[in-house]
Protein backbone atom coordinates (compact mmCIF):
# COMPACT_ATOMS: atom_id res chain seq x y z
CA UNK A 1 0.00 0.00 0.00
CA UNK A 2 1.26 3.51 -0.78
CA UNK A 3 2.19 5.65 2.21
CA UNK A 4 -0.32 8.25 3.35
CA UNK A 5 -0.78 10.71 6.16
CA UNK A 6 -3.22 10.05 8.97
CA UNK A 7 -5.54 12.24 11.01
CA UNK A 8 -7.71 10.90 13.78
CA UNK A 9 -10.86 12.98 14.28
CA UNK A 10 -13.05 13.11 17.35
CA UNK A 11 -15.61 15.67 16.14
CA UNK A 12 -17.51 15.98 12.87
CA UNK A 13 -16.59 19.64 12.38
CA UNK A 14 -12.89 18.88 12.78
CA UNK A 15 -13.10 15.93 10.40
CA UNK A 16 -14.76 18.09 7.75
CA UNK A 17 -12.16 20.84 8.23
CA UNK A 18 -9.39 18.26 7.76
CA UNK A 19 -10.97 17.35 4.42
CA UNK A 20 -11.24 21.00 3.39
CA UNK A 21 -7.54 21.53 4.14
CA UNK A 22 -6.33 18.44 2.27
CA UNK A 23 -7.65 18.22 -1.30
CA UNK A 24 -6.60 14.59 -1.75
CA UNK A 25 -7.83 13.28 1.60
CA UNK A 26 -10.56 10.72 2.18
CA UNK A 27 -12.63 9.74 5.19
CA UNK A 28 -11.86 6.34 6.73
CA UNK A 29 -14.63 4.44 8.52
CA UNK A 30 -14.72 0.62 8.55
CA UNK A 31 -12.14 0.49 5.77
CA UNK A 32 -13.34 -2.82 4.30
CA UNK A 33 -13.62 -1.34 0.82
CA UNK A 34 -11.18 1.59 0.99
CA UNK A 35 -8.18 -0.35 2.36
CA UNK A 36 -8.74 -3.02 -0.27
CA UNK A 37 -8.83 -0.38 -3.03
CA UNK A 38 -5.69 1.25 -1.63
CA UNK A 39 -3.84 -2.07 -1.61
CA UNK A 40 -4.81 -2.53 -5.26
CA UNK A 41 -3.68 1.00 -6.14
CA UNK A 42 -7.18 1.85 -7.38
CA UNK A 43 -7.44 4.82 -5.04
CA UNK A 44 -4.38 6.62 -3.70
CA UNK A 45 -5.39 9.16 -1.04
CA UNK A 46 -2.69 11.43 0.32
CA UNK A 47 -4.33 11.50 3.74
CA UNK A 48 -6.93 9.45 5.58
CA UNK A 49 -9.19 11.23 8.04
CA UNK A 50 -10.20 8.54 10.51
CA UNK A 51 -13.77 9.23 11.66
CA UNK A 52 -14.17 6.08 13.76
CA UNK A 53 -13.96 7.96 17.09
CA UNK A 54 -16.94 10.20 16.16
CA UNK A 55 -20.08 9.62 18.25
CA UNK A 56 -22.22 8.45 15.29
CA UNK A 57 -22.93 4.88 16.28
CA UNK A 58 -26.35 4.69 17.88
CA UNK A 59 -29.66 3.33 16.61
CA UNK A 60 -32.62 5.07 18.22
CA UNK A 61 -36.28 5.94 17.82
CA UNK A 62 -36.80 9.28 16.14
CA UNK A 63 -40.37 10.55 15.94
CA UNK A 64 -42.41 7.79 14.33
CA UNK A 65 -39.30 6.35 12.70
CA UNK A 66 -35.75 5.35 13.47
CA UNK A 67 -32.35 7.02 13.24
CA UNK A 68 -29.28 4.95 12.41
CA UNK A 69 -25.91 6.59 13.08
CA UNK A 70 -23.57 6.54 10.09
CA UNK A 71 -20.92 4.64 12.05
CA UNK A 72 -23.24 1.87 13.25
CA UNK A 73 -21.75 -1.33 11.89
CA UNK A 74 -23.69 -3.47 9.45
CA UNK A 75 -23.91 -6.22 12.12
CA UNK A 76 -25.22 -3.81 14.75
CA UNK A 77 -27.97 -2.68 12.39
CA UNK A 78 -28.90 -6.15 11.15
CA UNK A 79 -29.13 -7.57 14.68
CA UNK A 80 -30.80 -4.60 16.39
CA UNK A 81 -34.20 -5.41 17.96
CA UNK A 82 -35.81 -2.22 16.58
CA UNK A 83 -34.65 -3.10 13.06
CA UNK A 84 -35.68 -6.75 13.35
CA UNK A 85 -39.15 -5.71 14.54
CA UNK A 86 -39.87 -2.71 12.36
CA UNK A 87 -37.59 -3.05 9.33
CA UNK A 88 -36.81 -6.75 8.83
CA UNK A 89 -36.16 -6.15 5.11
CA UNK A 90 -33.07 -4.12 6.04
CA UNK A 91 -31.80 -6.89 8.29
CA UNK A 92 -32.30 -9.50 5.56
CA UNK A 93 -30.52 -7.37 2.97
CA UNK A 94 -27.53 -6.60 5.19
CA UNK A 95 -27.10 -10.24 6.17
CA UNK A 96 -27.16 -11.21 2.49
CA UNK A 97 -24.00 -9.16 1.93
CA UNK A 98 -20.33 -9.82 2.64
CA UNK A 99 -19.26 -12.06 5.55
CA UNK A 100 -19.82 -11.80 9.32
CA UNK A 101 -16.29 -10.43 9.81
CA UNK A 102 -16.80 -7.75 7.17
CA UNK A 103 -20.24 -6.83 8.50
CA UNK A 104 -18.67 -6.39 11.93
CA UNK A 105 -16.30 -3.79 10.47
CA UNK A 106 -18.32 -2.12 7.71
CA UNK A 107 -20.44 0.88 8.66
CA UNK A 108 -23.73 2.17 7.28
CA UNK A 109 -22.09 5.29 5.87
CA UNK A 110 -19.21 3.27 4.44
CA UNK A 111 -21.56 0.76 2.84
CA UNK A 112 -23.34 3.66 1.12
CA UNK A 113 -19.98 4.85 -0.22
CA UNK A 114 -18.92 1.39 -1.41
CA UNK A 115 -17.40 1.46 -4.90
CA UNK A 116 -18.43 -0.80 -7.73
CA UNK A 117 -16.97 -4.30 -8.03
CA UNK A 118 -16.58 -3.97 -11.81
CA UNK A 119 -13.38 -5.85 -12.68
CA UNK A 120 -12.29 -3.09 -15.03
CA UNK A 121 -12.50 -0.60 -12.16
CA UNK A 122 -10.29 -2.83 -10.00
CA UNK A 123 -7.75 -3.67 -12.71
CA UNK A 124 -5.49 -0.63 -13.01
CA UNK A 125 -4.08 -1.91 -16.33
CA UNK A 126 -7.55 -1.56 -17.90
CA UNK A 127 -9.40 1.53 -19.07
CA UNK A 128 -12.11 2.73 -16.68
CA UNK A 129 -13.88 6.07 -16.78
CA UNK A 130 -14.84 5.68 -13.14
CA UNK A 131 -11.26 5.17 -11.91
CA UNK A 132 -9.55 7.31 -14.53
CA UNK A 133 -12.01 9.67 -16.28
CA UNK A 134 -11.56 9.80 -20.03
CA UNK A 135 -9.69 6.49 -20.28
CA UNK A 136 -12.70 4.62 -21.68
CA UNK A 137 -14.88 1.78 -20.46
CA UNK A 138 -13.37 -1.69 -20.57
CA UNK A 139 -16.65 -3.35 -19.73
CA UNK A 140 -18.74 -1.90 -22.56
CA UNK A 141 -17.18 -4.24 -25.15
CA UNK A 142 -15.53 -6.52 -22.60
CA UNK A 143 -16.62 -9.25 -20.21
CA UNK A 144 -19.74 -7.55 -18.89
CA UNK A 145 -21.50 -10.43 -17.17
CA UNK A 146 -21.95 -8.59 -13.86
CA UNK A 147 -23.04 -5.32 -15.42
CA UNK A 148 -26.06 -3.03 -15.63
CA UNK A 149 -29.44 -3.44 -17.30
CA UNK A 150 -30.82 -0.02 -16.40
CA UNK A 151 -29.64 3.58 -16.55
CA UNK A 152 -26.13 2.93 -17.90
CA UNK A 153 -24.29 5.31 -20.23
CA UNK A 154 -21.70 4.74 -22.93
CA UNK A 155 -19.17 5.91 -20.33
CA UNK A 156 -19.93 3.31 -17.67
CA UNK A 157 -22.08 0.21 -17.24
CA UNK A 158 -20.97 -0.69 -13.70
CA UNK A 159 -23.42 -1.53 -10.92
CA UNK A 160 -23.66 -0.55 -7.27
CA UNK A 161 -22.68 -3.66 -5.30
CA UNK A 162 -24.48 -2.99 -1.99
CA UNK A 163 -27.35 -5.06 -0.63
CA UNK A 164 -28.07 -2.63 2.22
CA UNK A 165 -28.60 0.19 -0.28
CA UNK A 166 -31.33 -1.78 -2.06
CA UNK A 167 -33.34 -2.15 1.14
CA UNK A 168 -32.77 1.47 2.22
CA UNK A 169 -34.03 2.67 -1.17
CA UNK A 170 -37.15 0.50 -0.89
CA UNK A 171 -37.78 1.77 2.66
CA UNK A 172 -37.64 5.48 1.65
CA UNK A 173 -34.71 6.25 3.95
CA UNK A 174 -33.39 9.80 4.28
CA UNK A 175 -29.67 10.63 4.48
CA UNK A 176 -28.35 13.31 6.87
CA UNK A 177 -25.24 15.06 5.66
CA UNK A 178 -22.94 17.62 7.25
CA UNK A 179 -20.51 19.71 5.27
CA UNK A 180 -18.45 22.89 5.50
CA UNK A 181 -21.56 24.93 4.65
CA UNK A 182 -23.86 23.25 7.15
CA UNK A 183 -26.26 20.33 7.21
CA UNK A 184 -28.66 18.99 4.61
CA UNK A 185 -30.77 15.90 4.11
CA UNK A 186 -31.64 14.07 0.92
CA UNK A 187 -33.89 11.12 0.08
CA UNK A 188 -31.89 7.90 -0.13
CA UNK A 189 -33.07 7.39 -3.72
CA UNK A 190 -31.31 10.66 -4.68
CA UNK A 191 -28.07 9.84 -2.86
CA UNK A 192 -26.61 7.58 -5.55
CA UNK A 193 -26.58 8.71 -9.15
CA UNK A 194 -26.54 7.30 -12.66
CA UNK A 195 -23.18 7.39 -14.47
CA UNK A 196 -24.06 9.78 -17.32
CA UNK A 197 -20.95 11.67 -18.40
CA UNK A 198 -19.43 11.57 -14.91
CA UNK A 199 -19.12 7.92 -13.87
CA UNK A 200 -16.33 8.93 -11.47
CA UNK A 201 -19.10 10.27 -9.24
CA UNK A 202 -20.96 7.40 -7.59
CA UNK A 203 -23.22 9.71 -5.60
CA UNK A 204 -24.21 13.29 -4.91
CA UNK A 205 -22.07 13.71 -1.78
CA UNK A 206 -19.34 16.34 -1.98
CA UNK A 207 -15.86 15.15 -1.00
CA UNK A 208 -15.84 17.34 2.12
CA UNK A 209 -19.32 16.25 3.24
CA UNK A 210 -19.85 13.63 5.92
CA UNK A 211 -22.78 11.23 6.23
CA UNK A 212 -24.08 11.66 9.78
CA UNK A 213 -27.12 9.37 9.92
CA UNK A 214 -29.79 7.56 7.97
CA UNK A 215 -33.42 8.00 9.00
CA UNK A 216 -36.08 5.39 8.39
CA UNK A 217 -39.67 6.68 8.28
CA UNK A 218 -42.46 4.78 9.99
CA UNK A 219 -43.03 1.64 7.94
CA UNK A 220 -45.96 -0.76 7.56
CA UNK A 221 -43.62 -3.31 6.01
CA UNK A 222 -42.73 -5.51 8.93
CA UNK A 223 -44.34 -8.79 7.96
CA UNK A 224 -44.48 -9.47 4.23
CA UNK A 225 -40.92 -8.81 3.21
CA UNK A 226 -38.21 -10.69 1.38
CA UNK A 227 -34.71 -10.05 0.10
CA UNK A 228 -33.78 -12.45 -2.67
CA UNK A 229 -30.17 -12.44 -3.77
CA UNK A 230 -29.06 -14.46 -6.80
CA UNK A 231 -25.30 -15.02 -6.95
CA UNK A 232 -22.71 -17.45 -8.25
CA UNK A 233 -22.38 -19.30 -4.95
CA UNK A 234 -24.85 -19.65 -2.10
CA UNK A 235 -23.15 -17.17 0.21
CA UNK A 236 -20.51 -14.44 0.33
CA UNK A 237 -20.64 -13.23 -3.27
CA UNK A 238 -21.92 -10.11 -4.98
CA UNK A 239 -25.38 -10.15 -6.51
CA UNK A 240 -25.99 -10.96 -10.15
CA UNK A 241 -29.49 -9.71 -9.38
CA UNK A 242 -31.12 -9.03 -6.02
CA UNK A 243 -34.66 -8.00 -5.16
CA UNK A 244 -36.01 -6.25 -2.07
CA UNK A 245 -39.75 -6.82 -1.85
CA UNK A 246 -42.06 -5.42 0.83
CA UNK A 247 -45.84 -5.75 0.83
CA UNK A 248 -48.39 -4.21 3.14
CA UNK A 249 -51.35 -6.58 2.85
CA UNK A 250 -54.88 -6.62 4.14
CA UNK A 251 -56.09 -10.14 3.67
CA UNK A 252 -55.01 -10.92 0.11
CA UNK A 253 -55.12 -7.32 -1.04
CA UNK A 254 -51.90 -5.39 -1.50
CA UNK A 255 -52.34 -1.98 0.13
CA UNK A 256 -48.80 -0.81 -0.57
CA UNK A 257 -45.77 -2.34 -2.26
CA UNK A 258 -42.08 -1.47 -2.25
CA UNK A 259 -39.71 -3.00 -4.75
CA UNK A 260 -36.05 -2.36 -5.53
CA UNK A 261 -33.33 -4.28 -7.34
CA UNK A 262 -29.59 -4.59 -6.83
CA UNK A 263 -26.93 -5.65 -9.33
CA UNK A 264 -28.74 -4.05 -12.26
CA UNK A 265 -27.82 -0.35 -12.18
CA UNK A 266 -25.25 2.23 -11.11
CA UNK A 267 -27.57 2.94 -8.17
CA UNK A 268 -30.02 0.83 -6.17
CA UNK A 269 -32.90 0.53 -8.64
CA UNK A 270 -36.32 1.35 -7.30
CA UNK A 271 -39.24 -0.16 -9.27
CA UNK A 272 -41.84 2.61 -8.94
CA UNK A 273 -44.02 1.55 -11.89
CA UNK A 274 -44.32 -2.01 -10.61
CA UNK A 275 -45.14 -0.72 -7.10
CA UNK A 276 -47.92 1.48 -8.46
CA UNK A 277 -49.29 -1.42 -10.48
CA UNK A 278 -49.39 -3.72 -7.45
CA UNK A 279 -51.27 -1.26 -5.24
CA UNK A 280 -54.80 -2.53 -4.68
CA UNK A 281 -54.22 -5.80 -6.57
CA UNK A 282 -54.90 -9.25 -5.18
CA UNK A 283 -51.65 -10.94 -4.22
CA UNK A 284 -50.91 -13.82 -6.58
CA UNK A 285 -48.94 -14.90 -9.61
CA UNK A 286 -51.16 -12.94 -12.00
CA UNK A 287 -50.29 -9.62 -10.43
CA UNK A 288 -46.71 -10.62 -9.62
CA UNK A 289 -46.00 -11.76 -13.20
CA UNK A 290 -47.30 -8.50 -14.62
CA UNK A 291 -45.40 -6.44 -12.06
CA UNK A 292 -42.17 -8.20 -12.97
CA UNK A 293 -42.72 -7.47 -16.68
CA UNK A 294 -43.49 -3.81 -15.94
CA UNK A 295 -40.29 -3.63 -13.89
CA UNK A 296 -38.22 -4.70 -16.88
CA UNK A 297 -39.37 -1.92 -19.18
CA UNK A 298 -36.36 0.00 -20.44
CA UNK A 299 -33.89 -2.76 -19.61
CA UNK A 300 -30.94 -3.14 -21.96
CA UNK A 301 -28.47 -6.02 -21.84
CA UNK A 302 -24.91 -6.29 -23.13
CA UNK A 303 -23.06 -9.20 -24.69
CA UNK A 304 -22.50 -11.30 -21.56
CA UNK A 305 -25.34 -10.27 -19.26
CA UNK A 306 -28.26 -11.23 -21.51
CA UNK A 307 -29.15 -13.90 -18.95
CA UNK A 308 -30.14 -11.15 -16.51
CA UNK A 309 -33.06 -10.24 -18.80
CA UNK A 310 -34.66 -13.54 -17.75
CA UNK A 311 -33.14 -13.79 -14.30
CA UNK A 312 -34.33 -10.36 -13.12
CA UNK A 313 -38.09 -10.74 -13.76
CA UNK A 314 -37.99 -14.28 -12.38
CA UNK A 315 -36.25 -12.99 -9.25
CA UNK A 316 -38.90 -10.27 -8.83
CA UNK A 317 -41.67 -12.85 -9.19
CA UNK A 318 -40.05 -15.18 -6.68
CA UNK A 319 -39.34 -12.40 -4.19
CA UNK A 320 -42.98 -11.25 -4.35
CA UNK A 321 -44.24 -14.81 -3.90
CA UNK A 322 -42.08 -15.31 -0.84
CA UNK A 323 -42.86 -11.87 0.62
CA UNK A 324 -46.60 -12.41 0.22
CA UNK A 325 -46.38 -15.77 1.97
CA UNK A 326 -47.80 -17.61 -1.05
CA UNK A 327 -44.72 -19.81 -1.14
CA UNK A 328 -42.03 -20.17 1.46
Amino acid sequence: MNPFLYTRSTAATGAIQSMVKAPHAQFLAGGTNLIDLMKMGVVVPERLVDINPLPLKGIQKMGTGLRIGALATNSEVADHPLILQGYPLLSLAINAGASPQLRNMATVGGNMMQRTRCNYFFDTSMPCNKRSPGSGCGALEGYNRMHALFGASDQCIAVNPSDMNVALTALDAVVHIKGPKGERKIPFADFHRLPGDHPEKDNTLERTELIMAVDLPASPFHQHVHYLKIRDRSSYAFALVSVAAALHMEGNTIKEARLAMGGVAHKPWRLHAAETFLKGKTAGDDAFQQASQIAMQGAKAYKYNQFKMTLAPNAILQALRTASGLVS
Partner: protein
Amino acid sequence: MLKRTGVPPKGEGPFKGSRRDFLKQSSLLSAIALTPVTIVKAAEAQWDEKVADVFEKVTVNLEVNGIRHTVKVEPRVTLLDLLREELNLTGSKKGCDRGQCGACTVHVNGVRINSCLSLAVTNEGKKITTIEGLANGEELHPMQDAFIKHDGFQCGYCTSGQIMSAVALVKEGRTQSREQISEFMSGNICRCGAYSNIVKAIQEVKNHPS
Protein backbone atom coordinates in the same frame (compact mmCIF):
# COMPACT_ATOMS: atom_id res chain seq x y z
CA MET B 1 20.72 -3.78 11.14
CA LEU B 2 21.29 -3.05 7.52
CA LYS B 3 24.10 -0.69 6.72
CA ARG B 4 22.80 2.71 5.73
CA THR B 5 23.65 3.66 2.18
CA GLY B 6 24.31 7.33 1.66
CA VAL B 7 24.30 9.47 -1.46
CA PRO B 8 26.74 7.98 -3.96
CA PRO B 9 29.97 9.99 -4.18
CA LYS B 10 30.19 12.35 -7.14
CA GLY B 11 31.54 10.82 -10.30
CA GLU B 12 30.24 7.37 -9.53
CA GLY B 13 27.16 5.89 -11.15
CA PRO B 14 24.04 6.07 -9.06
CA PHE B 15 23.86 2.30 -8.71
CA LYS B 16 27.55 1.48 -8.45
CA GLY B 17 28.24 -0.95 -5.66
CA SER B 18 26.95 -4.31 -4.59
CA ARG B 19 23.81 -5.93 -5.98
CA ARG B 20 22.30 -5.60 -2.56
CA ASP B 21 22.88 -1.85 -2.57
CA PHE B 22 21.37 -1.66 -6.04
CA LEU B 23 18.25 -3.47 -4.90
CA LYS B 24 17.95 -1.26 -1.86
CA GLN B 25 18.36 1.89 -3.88
CA SER B 26 16.07 0.86 -6.72
CA SER B 27 13.31 -0.23 -4.37
CA LEU B 28 13.76 3.10 -2.65
CA LEU B 29 13.32 4.86 -5.98
CA SER B 30 10.13 3.01 -6.75
CA ALA B 31 8.85 3.62 -3.24
CA ILE B 32 9.43 7.32 -3.73
CA ALA B 33 7.83 7.30 -7.17
CA LEU B 34 4.64 6.07 -5.53
CA THR B 35 4.77 8.38 -2.53
CA PRO B 36 2.62 11.43 -1.87
CA VAL B 37 4.34 14.69 -2.71
CA THR B 38 4.45 15.99 0.84
CA ILE B 39 6.36 12.96 2.05
CA VAL B 40 8.72 13.00 -0.90
CA LYS B 41 9.56 16.63 -0.21
CA ALA B 42 10.37 15.79 3.37
CA ALA B 43 12.44 12.87 2.26
CA GLU B 44 14.42 14.59 -0.47
CA ALA B 45 16.86 16.10 1.95
CA GLN B 46 17.98 12.68 3.15
CA TRP B 47 18.52 10.47 0.14
CA ASP B 48 18.97 7.20 1.98
CA GLU B 49 17.10 4.64 4.01
CA LYS B 50 16.16 7.37 6.44
CA VAL B 51 13.28 7.98 4.06
CA ALA B 52 11.51 5.25 5.97
CA ASP B 53 11.87 7.30 9.14
CA VAL B 54 10.40 10.36 7.50
CA PHE B 55 7.15 8.55 6.89
CA GLU B 56 4.88 9.64 9.66
CA LYS B 57 4.59 7.08 12.43
CA VAL B 58 1.72 6.98 14.86
CA THR B 59 1.78 5.68 18.40
CA VAL B 60 -0.83 3.03 19.13
CA ASN B 61 -1.69 1.51 22.49
CA LEU B 62 -3.43 -1.80 22.32
CA GLU B 63 -3.82 -4.99 24.29
CA VAL B 64 -3.07 -8.28 22.58
CA ASN B 65 -3.97 -11.52 24.34
CA GLY B 66 -3.96 -9.71 27.68
CA ILE B 67 -0.61 -7.99 27.19
CA ARG B 68 -0.44 -4.24 26.68
CA HIS B 69 1.69 -2.90 23.86
CA THR B 70 2.70 0.58 22.81
CA VAL B 71 3.98 0.58 19.25
CA LYS B 72 4.84 3.17 16.64
CA VAL B 73 3.58 2.24 13.22
CA GLU B 74 3.15 3.77 9.81
CA PRO B 75 -0.53 4.45 9.17
CA ARG B 76 -0.53 1.95 6.28
CA VAL B 77 0.41 -1.00 8.51
CA THR B 78 -2.53 -3.33 8.94
CA LEU B 79 -3.40 -4.95 12.24
CA LEU B 80 -2.43 -8.28 10.65
CA ASP B 81 1.05 -7.03 9.74
CA LEU B 82 1.48 -5.48 13.18
CA LEU B 83 0.62 -8.81 14.83
CA ARG B 84 2.81 -10.88 12.54
CA GLU B 85 5.77 -8.61 11.83
CA GLU B 86 6.10 -6.51 14.99
CA LEU B 87 4.62 -8.67 17.75
CA ASN B 88 5.74 -12.01 16.25
CA LEU B 89 2.26 -13.50 16.57
CA THR B 90 2.27 -15.43 13.32
CA GLY B 91 -0.75 -17.60 14.10
CA SER B 92 -3.02 -15.18 12.23
CA LYS B 93 -2.38 -15.94 8.57
CA LYS B 94 -2.16 -13.75 5.51
CA GLY B 95 -4.14 -15.51 2.80
CA CYS B 96 -5.68 -13.13 0.29
CA ASP B 97 -4.84 -9.93 2.22
CA ARG B 98 -8.11 -8.51 0.82
CA GLY B 99 -10.80 -9.62 3.25
CA GLN B 100 -11.96 -12.48 1.09
CA CYS B 101 -10.53 -15.60 2.76
CA GLY B 102 -10.80 -15.07 6.54
CA ALA B 103 -7.39 -16.58 7.39
CA CYS B 104 -6.53 -13.37 9.27
CA THR B 105 -9.62 -13.43 11.52
CA VAL B 106 -9.03 -12.08 15.04
CA HIS B 107 -11.32 -10.72 17.74
CA VAL B 108 -11.31 -6.99 18.44
CA ASN B 109 -13.14 -6.15 21.66
CA GLY B 110 -14.71 -9.59 21.42
CA VAL B 111 -15.94 -9.19 17.83
CA ARG B 112 -14.48 -11.15 14.89
CA ILE B 113 -12.96 -9.08 12.09
CA ASN B 114 -10.55 -9.42 9.16
CA SER B 115 -7.28 -8.03 10.51
CA CYS B 116 -5.92 -7.57 6.96
CA LEU B 117 -8.43 -4.76 6.32
CA SER B 118 -8.02 -3.03 9.67
CA LEU B 119 -5.30 -0.40 9.94
CA ALA B 120 -3.32 -0.87 13.15
CA VAL B 121 -3.71 2.86 13.96
CA THR B 122 -7.50 2.48 14.14
CA ASN B 123 -7.13 -0.02 16.98
CA GLU B 124 -6.09 2.49 19.63
CA GLY B 125 -7.21 1.26 23.06
CA LYS B 126 -8.71 -1.96 21.68
CA LYS B 127 -8.40 -5.47 23.07
CA ILE B 128 -7.25 -7.99 20.47
CA THR B 129 -7.44 -11.75 20.81
CA THR B 130 -5.54 -13.93 18.35
CA ILE B 131 -5.34 -17.71 18.03
CA GLU B 132 -2.33 -17.56 20.40
CA GLY B 133 -4.59 -16.15 23.11
CA LEU B 134 -7.27 -18.86 23.07
CA ALA B 135 -5.59 -21.62 25.05
CA ASN B 136 -5.30 -21.47 28.81
CA GLY B 137 -1.64 -22.35 29.25
CA GLU B 138 -1.26 -25.94 28.06
CA GLU B 139 -5.00 -26.47 28.04
CA LEU B 140 -6.48 -25.97 24.58
CA HIS B 141 -9.68 -24.02 24.01
CA PRO B 142 -12.64 -26.43 23.49
CA MET B 143 -12.87 -25.29 19.85
CA GLN B 144 -9.22 -26.17 19.28
CA ASP B 145 -9.82 -29.61 20.82
CA ALA B 146 -12.89 -30.10 18.67
CA PHE B 147 -11.05 -29.17 15.45
CA ILE B 148 -8.41 -31.81 16.29
CA LYS B 149 -10.98 -34.44 17.24
CA HIS B 150 -13.05 -33.94 14.06
CA ASP B 151 -10.12 -33.37 11.72
CA GLY B 152 -11.34 -29.89 10.84
CA PHE B 153 -8.37 -29.17 8.57
CA GLN B 154 -5.87 -30.61 6.13
CA CYS B 155 -3.10 -28.15 5.30
CA GLY B 156 -3.96 -25.98 8.30
CA TYR B 157 -3.39 -22.59 6.69
CA CYS B 158 -6.96 -21.37 7.19
CA THR B 159 -7.36 -23.12 10.56
CA SER B 160 -6.51 -20.31 12.96
CA GLY B 161 -8.98 -18.06 11.14
CA GLN B 162 -11.59 -20.81 11.11
CA ILE B 163 -11.20 -21.38 14.85
CA MET B 164 -11.35 -17.66 15.70
CA SER B 165 -14.46 -17.33 13.57
CA ALA B 166 -16.00 -20.47 15.09
CA VAL B 167 -15.43 -19.28 18.66
CA ALA B 168 -17.19 -16.00 17.80
CA LEU B 169 -19.97 -17.86 15.98
CA VAL B 170 -20.87 -19.87 19.10
CA LYS B 171 -20.88 -16.68 21.17
CA GLU B 172 -23.18 -15.02 18.59
CA GLY B 173 -25.59 -17.95 18.86
CA ARG B 174 -25.51 -18.63 15.12
CA THR B 175 -25.39 -22.40 15.54
CA GLN B 176 -29.08 -23.28 15.30
CA SER B 177 -28.66 -25.51 12.24
CA ARG B 178 -26.04 -26.85 9.90
CA GLU B 179 -27.24 -24.30 7.33
CA GLN B 180 -26.90 -21.41 9.77
CA ILE B 181 -23.40 -22.50 10.74
CA SER B 182 -22.40 -22.70 7.07
CA GLU B 183 -23.90 -19.29 6.28
CA PHE B 184 -22.22 -17.56 9.22
CA MET B 185 -18.88 -19.30 8.60
CA SER B 186 -18.93 -18.26 4.93
CA GLY B 187 -16.25 -15.62 5.50
CA ASN B 188 -13.68 -18.37 6.10
CA ILE B 189 -12.59 -20.18 2.98
CA CYS B 190 -10.93 -23.62 3.20
CA ARG B 191 -9.24 -24.64 -0.02
CA CYS B 192 -8.77 -28.21 1.23
CA GLY B 193 -12.51 -28.47 1.69
CA ALA B 194 -12.63 -29.46 5.37
CA TYR B 195 -16.00 -27.73 5.72
CA SER B 196 -18.08 -30.68 6.86
CA ASN B 197 -15.61 -31.53 9.62
CA ILE B 198 -15.41 -27.88 10.65
CA VAL B 199 -19.19 -27.88 11.05
CA LYS B 200 -18.96 -31.07 13.14
CA ALA B 201 -16.38 -29.45 15.41
CA ILE B 202 -18.58 -26.39 15.89
CA GLN B 203 -21.64 -28.52 16.61
CA GLU B 204 -19.69 -30.44 19.24
CA VAL B 205 -18.65 -27.27 21.05
CA LYS B 206 -22.18 -25.91 20.80
CA ASN B 207 -23.69 -29.12 22.20
CA HIS B 208 -21.06 -29.73 24.87
CA PRO B 209 -19.75 -26.37 26.01
CA SER B 210 -17.13 -26.87 28.65
